[in-house]
């Protein structure tokens, strides 16, 4: 190469690049494509948001309290989502109490303790695959285990079709996601941090507690909250667990004994109302979607606030 190229070639080419007015068509096309991708996403989101907010606005402004605390009803004008919010609240509690500790614990073990053998790699690949299993399959699993096999524990008087079964099913559904995102966050911690800890004589536990977890914390938090949002929005597993959609009395109690009673949850309410032909339900459905979006948004915002606080402290 060097032999065949004139000595003046390189500076010539550089000068041309710097001074030439040549239009960089490829580069422009690439950035235009990227911008278009972003615009399509944002537009779709904006249209969806506008549509549901526009549709649900009348309900949310004319009877906000009644709507947020009301019960399922055959009349659209009386229908409320109090019972749905209650079910979704308890599902969130179960996911936080069950999926988060188990998932983060498994991730720490996989990344920090488990030796890198063929078995651990196999487990790792399997967990990744589990995250892609359709939610309805988890619904079947939940139906077989929590509704049928453990029915006497999850809801003796409701044949296991309770918010306990639903919460545990959705906790299992998001468990692989929690493990994967937590493991990624832990893997991103530089080894030099760990080595520094070991270097001053810290034990493995001390290194994890004081170096790895604080550094991986924000990443773990982001992953877990995304998992929570996923769990709150799932409808398919709830159909199989047997959420009630027609009429439910007493399904809005936050009393712990009521956990063993029949339940409904926001995605089921939305799913069921979408199918109803009466005009009032169109607006009620839109309003319910807005509320569910707000709930998920609040969960995400909380995570971002917590993460920022963590990062500042780091």
């Amino acid at each position, binding site marked *: 190469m060097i032999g065949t190229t004139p000595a003046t070639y390189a500076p010539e080419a550089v000068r041309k690049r710097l001074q030439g007015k040549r239009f960089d068509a490829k580069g422009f096309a690439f950035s235009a494509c990227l911008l278009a991708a972003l615009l399509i996403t944002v537009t779709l989101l904006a249209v969806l948001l506008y549509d549901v907010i526009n549709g649900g606005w009348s309900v949310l402004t004319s009877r906000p309290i009644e709507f947020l605390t009301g019960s399922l*009803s*055959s009349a659209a004008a009386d229908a409320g989502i109090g019972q749905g919010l209650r079910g979704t609240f308890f599902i969130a509690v179960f996911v936080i109490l069950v999926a988060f500790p188990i998932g983060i614990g498994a991730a720490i073990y996989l990344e920090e303790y488990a030796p890198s053998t063929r078995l651990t790699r196999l487990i790792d690949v399997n967990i990744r695959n589990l995250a892609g299993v359709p939610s309805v399959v988890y619904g079947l699993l939940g139906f077989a285990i929590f509704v049928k096999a453990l029915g006497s524990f999850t809801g003796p*008087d*409701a*044949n296991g079709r309770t918010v306990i079964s639903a919460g545990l099913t959705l906790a299992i559904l998001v468990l692989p996601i929690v493990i994967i995102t937590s493991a990624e966050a832990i893997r991103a911690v530089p080894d030099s941090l760990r080595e520094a800890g070991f270097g001053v004589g810290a034990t493995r536990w001390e290194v994890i507690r004081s170096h790895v977890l604080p550094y991986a914390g924000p990443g773990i938090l982001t992953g877990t909250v995304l998992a929570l949002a996923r769990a709150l929005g799932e409808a398919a597993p709830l159909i199989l667990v047997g959420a*009630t*959609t*027609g*009429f*439910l*009395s*007493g*399904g809005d*109690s*936050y*009393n*712990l*004994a*009521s956990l063993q*009673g*029949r339940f409904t949850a926001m995605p089921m309410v939305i799913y069921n109302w979408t*199918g*109803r*032909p*009466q005009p009032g339900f169109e607006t009620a459905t839109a309003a319910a979607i807005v509320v569910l979006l707000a709930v998920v948004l609040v969960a995400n915002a909380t995570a971002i606030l917590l993460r920022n*606080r963590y990062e*500042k*402290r780091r």
Partner: protein
Amino acid sequence: MRHSAPAQGRLKAPSHLARLLAALLTAAACASPGGAGGLAGSIVISGSSTVEPISIAVAEKFHERHPVVDISVDGPGTGDGFELFCDGEIHISNASRPIRPAEIADCEDNDIQFIELKIAIDGIAVLTSPNNNAIGECLSFADLYSVVGPESRRFDRWSDANSLAAELGETHAAPFPDVALDVTGPGEESGTYDSFVEIVIEEIAAERGQPEQTRPDYQASADDNVVVQGVTGTDTSLGWVGYAFFKSNKSQLKAFEIVNEDGACVAATPSSLADGSYPISRPLFIYVHAEKVEDNEALSEFVDFYLSDEGIASVTEVGYVVLTPGELEATKDAWEARETGARDT
């Protein structure tokens, strides 16, 4: 907030958590378990999505009087309802057709006795889009058989059915024009499907040695509302749903008149359903778990209320047709006597 010292933030975090926890505990403590006195218990109702609105309306009224009784109502379909019922999971099974021998056998296997109560009459409306001017106003059973019967598989234009219709004779609207044929109907688990097959398809299918079913390639949904949406999707669509669903969506839909035994075109109206002149009508039932009636006071009270004047008024409120006084009396007698087993099949 942004300028607050990190130390302050660290101190705040636990207090936030504590406050949240306190709020949760108060919420849990405030919700008192149940109320004192009055009727208590639980009633679980499932089954036909066609009967569901009646049971919901009755449940809502009942709930106002006895707020402590836990009631839940669902509508997955008549067949699914009987499956749950014969598993002993539910107290009342809504049904838009009588229980089948196989289902009776299922119940017997689990020692479940039922009380069959006829509560209302429903018609099946054969629907199309209000923009449909191509097909005419009235269809006969032979017309329907030629477009949705077992031999109509893969017909996606109305005109595809013409040779079959000619073979059948007794048609009213055929020959059909060459327009798109999109069929939407209730799924096979639905009582509406069974009744439609039994009333419209069965006789012609039996004569022609065909299986007693509709074409398999139609858009099926257990949710009657989805059927309504499907039918409004295409101008020359065809579908069928329970009469009440048609009635509450009259503005979006058009129902065909149906040729009855006397050769007259009859529209589905409350009076034509009640006097039986509209040919596609059927009884609606609730099946009550006989054993649970004995030891669940709330359940027997609920069925009493269901059959009372106020309860049975729900039938017309949600768009179905009430039984004749004689038939209602027979239902009440069967309930008073706790008569178990299938009565009329």
